Structures are given as C-alpha cells and as structure tokens.
C-alpha cells in the first residue's frame, strides 16, 4: 500500500464533522503552526517539502509563497482555487466532499504563513452542494475558535469565505478567478503584473489549488524534510489522481509520486486493469489539456524505460513522445475508442469555454471544432488534417492565458500520434457510422 497523507481517513464515518476530524488528528497542524512557528518558518518548511502546485502547472509552492509582495499597510490574500473544471479531473471535489476540514485546516495554516487575514475559497458553480458542506465546516471551525478573531489566543485573525462561481472553466485560470471574485466578467488579466504583486483588489495574492493547500497540513505535521522523502526526485509527496475511462475501478486514488504507470493502470490497488479484458489504446494522463499518448508511450518512455507517475517522468521526451502530469486527470482509452471523436469532444469544450478576449483562441477553437465535426460527419478532407495542425500551431503560445495552449495540445498530440486514424476517417467515411460513443464502440482499427 502506498502512503496516504490526504485520504488516510476518508472512509471514517462522520469525518465531515469537526468532532470526528479532530479525533483523528485534525487541526493539529493549526495548533502547531500558530502556536509554535513563525510565518517565515512555515514558508521555509513548505519550500523544504518540495511541494509543487497540484492545479496543473506544478510550480513549487514554497517559491510561489516567497514571491508574495509584502508592502506595508496593504492586505494580502490567499485564494483557494476550487474551480476544478478540467475534463477528467474530479479530485478536489472528492477531497472537499469527504474531508472538508482538511481544506479548512490547510487554509488556516497557509493564510497564517502568508499573513492573510481574509481568505477565499472560489468554487465552481456546479459544486453548489459542496458549498453547503464547506460552509458547515467553516461554521464549526469558527465555533471551535479556529477561525475569527484571536485564533487559539495567538492574536492571529482570519476570516474565511466560500465564493461560488457561475460555472466557467476559464474562471479556474488564476487571474480570471480573481476578476470573477471581484464581481467582474471572468476574463484573464494580461500579465505582468502577477497576482503575487497585484492580485485580488490590486493587493498581493496567492492562488493555490485545493489539493496544494490540503497538502500543507501533513507538511506541517510531519515536517517538510519528512514529506520530501516521499515520492521521487523533484516530485515529492503524494498526488490525487482522478482515474476514469475504460478501467475496472475508476475513482480518485492517492498515489505516492513515482508509482509506475503500468502498476497504476493494471494493479488491483489502483485502476484494476482495462475493462472487459480489452487492450490499452491511449491515455490522457493529466486532464484534457495535456497531450494524449498511445499505450506504448505511456507505459514506457521513448528510451524504453518504465514511465512513472511523476512530473519529470511523464514529461520525458517533451511533447514529441511525452506528456504532463497536469492536474492528474487520468483518462484511459481502450482499443475500441475513437481518438478523433474524443478530440472533437475536447475541442468542443475549449471552444465553449474560451473567454473570447484574444483572437487566436476565440476564432481558432471554434474553427478546429468545426473541422473535427466535419471529419466525424464523414465530410472530412485530407487537407483538413494539415489545416488542423496549422491552426493549433497558430494558437499555441500566442494567447493571453494558457487556455489557448490547452486547446492546442490535444489537437497536436492526436495528430502526432494518431494521424492514421484521421486519414482512415477521411478516406473511408463509411466506417465512421460504427463510432457511436466517444469512448466505447467497435471502432475501425487503422493499421
């Protein structure tokens, strides 16, 4: 069994209540941090732990915290990004539903470390029922003296609010999130200035993912150095993986970073192998935005070494033969899946979610979707494949926020690794009528 730091108690009955949570060691990190540590020491501890952002980009959290500007007399804010809208990613939801107090505890400790007296959890609108769970937990925490004025008699004040979005993927991008939190249209800001200097209400702000903030709790409890021993290389600690697709046991798994991908897919502890004894065709390893990899390349790197579930190993080979850990949305596709139809689905999503500020993303995502639709409709042309390639290239790296890249990478990787399937659809449109679902059908098998 791998080590469990976040989900160790997720099945304890009543763990959603502060009582049960405390009986299982909950709020020890708040006691320890606020009573025995200074904010700077906490930031150092997180730096030592090697924790990297779990929201997708994997930026070292301690470093991000130390970049926070600290001008005199200006408030600082911590905002938790609970907008979780990346297709294939559903780990934050599980964590907040099951152990809401872990997030609240992480928010208190992290806010203290950053010197924030007001913090927000920005949660996606569709998670309205989780808003109620979190608000209940916050109420309990206030009652127990973990929130509010003079927490545990230490003189530290903190108010914590849950703010629901209206259901837009783009509001997960940190500056769009800040705009939305301010009550404006959720358009990403043009950077610089970065949130660490001018964020919420033009004040220094840190935005962190739910899982990142939750991970601060075990880091405080066990110490950064102990935490850094878990995992592999610069991928320290544990990671929640949302596993979905053609596997026997879909769900949220906490893994120690460094588990071989093969073990993750096939072992009984995790996904339990491919459903119905089918063969593995492809995996999207980190949420819909990251490049799709064919079975051979996800199990082994181009050098033939076993691929591991870590930031470095998944990225091995760059985009030519590698991918990214991203937000840990692990989508498995068996031999019957249609890569092109799945891509159409993803592209439709990015088209729908583009905020429309910058021209490459606004016009390019819709255009790509229309071409993919045409191919799946049986009217594709050979030149459509090259046009798709050009369009993704003209979007990538030329937009205000990374949503443009997120829309471009799936298209690029599908063509890179599965061009034959596009060609088969274009040359033999009759075969497309066999494709009935995105994921499970008797699809044609291009050579």
């Amino acid at each position: 069994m791998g080590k469990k730091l976040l989900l160790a108690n997720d099945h304890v009955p009543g763990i959603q209540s502060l009582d049960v949570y405390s009986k299982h060691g909950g709020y020890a990190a708040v006691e320890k941090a606020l009573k025995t540590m200074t904010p700077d020491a906490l930031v150092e501890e997180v730096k030592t732990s090697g924790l990297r952002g779990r929201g997708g980009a994997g930026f070292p959290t301690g470093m991000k915290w130390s970049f926070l500007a600290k001008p005199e007399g200006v408030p600082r804010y911590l905002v938790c990004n609970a907008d979780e809208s990346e297709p294939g990613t559903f780990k934050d939801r599980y964590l907040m539903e099951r152990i809401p107090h872990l997030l609240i505890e992480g928010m208190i400790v992290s806010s203290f470390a950053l010197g924030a007296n007001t913090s927000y959890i920005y949660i996606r609108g569709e998670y309205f029922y989780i808003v109620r769970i979190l608000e209940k937990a916050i109420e309990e925490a206030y009652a127990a003296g973990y929130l509010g004025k003079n927490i545990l008699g230490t003189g530290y004040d903190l108010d914590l609010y849950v703010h629901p979005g209206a259901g837009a993927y783009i509001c997960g991008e940190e500056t769009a999130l800040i705009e939305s939190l301010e009550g404006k249209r959720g358009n990403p800001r043009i950077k610089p200035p970065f949130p660490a200097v001018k964020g919420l209400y033009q004040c220094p702000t840190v935005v962190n993912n739910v899982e990142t903030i939750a991970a601060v709790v075990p880091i405080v409890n066990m110490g950064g150095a102990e935490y850094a021993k878990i995992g592999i290389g610069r991928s320290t600690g544990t990671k929640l993986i949302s596993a979905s697709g053609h596997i026997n046991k879909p769900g949220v798994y906490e893994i120690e970073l460094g588990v071989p991908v093969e073990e993750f897919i096939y072992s009984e502890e995790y996904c339990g192998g491919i459903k119905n004894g089918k063969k593995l065709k492809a995996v999207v390893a980190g949420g819909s935005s990251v490049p799709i990899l064919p079975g051979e390349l996800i199990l082994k790197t181009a050098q033939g070494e076993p691929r591991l579930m870590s930031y470095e190993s998944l990225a091995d080979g760059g985009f030519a033969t590698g991918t990214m850990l991203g937000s840990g949305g692990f989508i498995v596709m068996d031999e019957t899946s249609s890569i092109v139809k799945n891509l159409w689905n993803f592209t439709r999503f990015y088209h729908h979610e583009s905020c429309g500020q910058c021209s490459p993303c606004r016009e390019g995502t819709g255009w790509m979707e229309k071409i993919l639709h045409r191919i799946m409709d049986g009217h594709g042309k050979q030149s459509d494949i090259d046009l798709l390639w050009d369009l993704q290239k003209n979007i990538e790296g030329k937009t205000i926020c990374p949503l443009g890249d997120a829309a471009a990478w799936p298209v690029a990787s599908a063509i890179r690794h599965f061009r034959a399937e596009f060609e088969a659809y274009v040359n033999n449109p009759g075969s497309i009528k066999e494709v009935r679902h995105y994921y499970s059908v008797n699809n044609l098998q291009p050579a």
Partner: protein
Amino acid sequence: MPKVTIDGHTIEVPEGTTILQAARMIGPEVAPPAMCYYSKLATSGGYCRTCIVKVTQGSEKDPRPMPKPVASCRTTVMDGMVVENKTSAEVLEARKGVVEFLLANHPLDCPVCDQAGECHLQDLSYEHGASDTRYEFERRTFDKIDIGDKIKLHMTRCILCYRCVKVADQLTPGRVHGVINRGDVAEISTYIENAIDNEFSGNMIDVCPVGALTDKTFRFKSRVWFTKPVDAHRECSSCSGKVVLWYQGAEVLRVTARKDAFGEVEEFICNTCRFDKKQTADWVIEGPRKINAHSVISANHYEADTVNPGPVTPRLN
C-alpha cells in the same frame, strides 16, 4: 534609460516604455501593427495579438530569449533587449496566422462598408494576410443595433479590440455598454439596447479599427476616398475643437477627430463638433489634411503630402 534594439535599430527610451512604443519612436517602418492597443486609452492592448514580436535577448542582465512570442504593446522594454519584428520570418508567419483568425469570421463586406479605405483590418490583411481563406464554414453574424441616434453597431464586423469599451470607461461618465457572452459569440452590446447618449460617445467610432461602429450621419453617403479631408477648428467649450472635415464638393459629409501616422486619434472630440457642426461656416479652415500613405484614401489625391510608411512587408507566399 533602457536601450532596446528592434529590427537592428537601437534606441534609448524612458523606463516603462513598451516594445511597441519604442518601435513607434524609431518610426512607422519598424512599428508592429496594432489593432487593439491605443496609446490614449489606459489598459488597452493585449487582445488582438497582431503586434506579437520575438524577443531574442531578454535584457543585458538576462540575455536569454523569451520562450514565446510576446505582445509588444504590453511588454515593457528592458535594458539590452533585442527584438525581431519584420526581420523575423517566424514573426511574420505567426502574424499571418493571427490575421487569418481575425478574418475567419469577418464578413469581408468591404464593398458596402463605410470603413473601407480607412480600415485597419483592410490594411493589415493587405500587408500581412494570405490572399485567400481557408475558412469554409458559415460566418458568424449578429443583428445590427442602433446605439443612440448617431451610432450604428454592426457587431458582425467587430474584432473585439475592446477599444470602444475603454472609451466608454475612460471618456464618458456612466458606461452603459460592454462585452456580453463568451468566446466567439461574445459581443459588444448595450445589453438592453440602451442608448449611448453622452457628449463623448462619438469617439467610439474613431477608435473602432473596423466598420463595427459607424457614424449614422455619414453611413452610405460616400466612399471615404471620394471625400477630401480638411483640417479645421472651432472654439468649443467641451473639447479642443480640432477636427477633420470630410468634403464632397462644398458639402461636409462628416466630421472626425484628427489621426496620427499610426491611425490613432490625436485629441478626442465632442459630439457637438462631430455631429452638429456640418457647415463650413461653423469652422475655421486650416488646409488639406495629410493622410498616411498606406491608406486607400491617399490613393487618389494626396501623394505630395503623404507620410511614407516604408516598403510593404515582403509577402510570405
């Protein structure tokens, strides 16, 4: 003061200058095209991506190149920065891609569009675009909206540069229009077709790079290149009163603000000057207006006084 080199020209500029501003200081021949940036409007720029350039050296201290092309209008110059604009095939290729995106859903109705001849999108496509389209789908359309009695909004032509929103924000009190909806159905709107009715709203027409916002008192009266621009001014209590009168024969067909070599308004004017003063007797005439040579307007009459923006960028195919 930081020194920056753009396409081989080195210039020293004040701290905080953007690459685009520095390039404009060197001259129109090195300035990247800008469809959304507007030097007179704070926080403008960054949206259209036509001004993207390659930074091959970040600064003297950190000479690493920037990994991605950057929007020159929103990137400040660092000392020792080296930038490639028109000298980089990669930049021209990327810009061509941006133009293609801007045109993908554009109606290309130039023959019936009042902006034709002074349209930045026309100029941009001519210099940087491809000669035919690869977009084979139905183009997006919107209904035309009257915003107030003087301005027509034809959203179908809009490239969402946000300039008019910033005019409304920064020049006029109580903004009543903005962007609604998302992605490629986002539109400039007054939400419930509220009239825009204040003294400076007419400037939205001038800052619009395309024919999305047009002057209803001029719509369909003439092609701009058949009219003659004349500088004129009057005593005005709300603006500078410095304008251009566009004549056909002895008749003033429209009044606009004066624009510089980059197509930007020099001084914003009020609606009284723009819409209500259409008699020669209302004005003190200064003389013929110099027009930037890259514009179609100058094709007919103004060769002698034109500002030459330099050779047209080499075409990529």
